[in-house]
């Protein structure tokens, strides 16, 4: 029997501004893959802050489906790219893909919205192993 799961996350656009600060180095490359970085620019080539914030929120929302307490977010392994019809699509790899398999997750869908200086994302999936995730929510939180 499968059980639905949702994850949600909110990222202020101001945080993206901090990550783009050249004084702190190329930190954004730790969060976004090469393909995501290329897709995170406005038509005039400037960083798309709303798009980046939405992408980061979506990654964290997806991570919340994985039930992976005590681990850092595998940012590079959760790619959020433009899917068919312009909807965001999720591509998992490496540790993130292993965690999703371990959690018994089916296909993951995400929805992203931006307004008033914030980006919010919701991720949804079903799991075939609800007991696995139920046991993990009582464990210590993670960054």
């Amino acid at each position: 029997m499968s059980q639905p799961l949702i994850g949600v996350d909110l990222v202020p656009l101001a945080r993206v501004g901090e990550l783009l600060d050249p004084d702190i180095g190329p930190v954004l490359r730790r969060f976004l893959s090469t393909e995501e970085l290329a897709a995170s620019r406005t038509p005039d080539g400037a960083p798309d802050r709303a798009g980046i914030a939405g992408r980061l929120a979506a990654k964290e929302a997806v991570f919340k489906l994985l039930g992976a307490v005590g681990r850092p977010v595998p940012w590079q392994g959760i790619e959020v790219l433009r899917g068919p019809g312009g909807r965001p699509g999720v591509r998992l790899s490496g540790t993130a893909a292993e965690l999703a398999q371990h959690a018994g997750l089916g296909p993951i869908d995400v929805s992203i919205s931006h307004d008033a200086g914030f980006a919010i994302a919701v991720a949804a999936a079903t799991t075939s192993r609800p007991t696995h995730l139920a046991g993990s929510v009582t464990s210590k939180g993670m960054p």
Partner: protein
Amino acid sequence: MSSAGIDKVRDWILGRHPERTELAADVDLIESRLVDSLAFVELVYTIEDAAGVEIDFDAIDIEDFQTLATIEKAFFA
């Protein structure tokens, strides 16, 4: 006596939280919400810069980043 490296890490955390003037070595940075998931990546970057090492993000043991004391033991001892 703390190393210059861990002082850089402490200063970076305090710089993000102007409401705080000090940070004890045993304060849990994650449970205290001083470092969230986005800031965690910046924390790793700050430690790399201060310690002159490269940290494999996929092999991170979260316990090493729990407090200033564990960070100092793992990266500046």
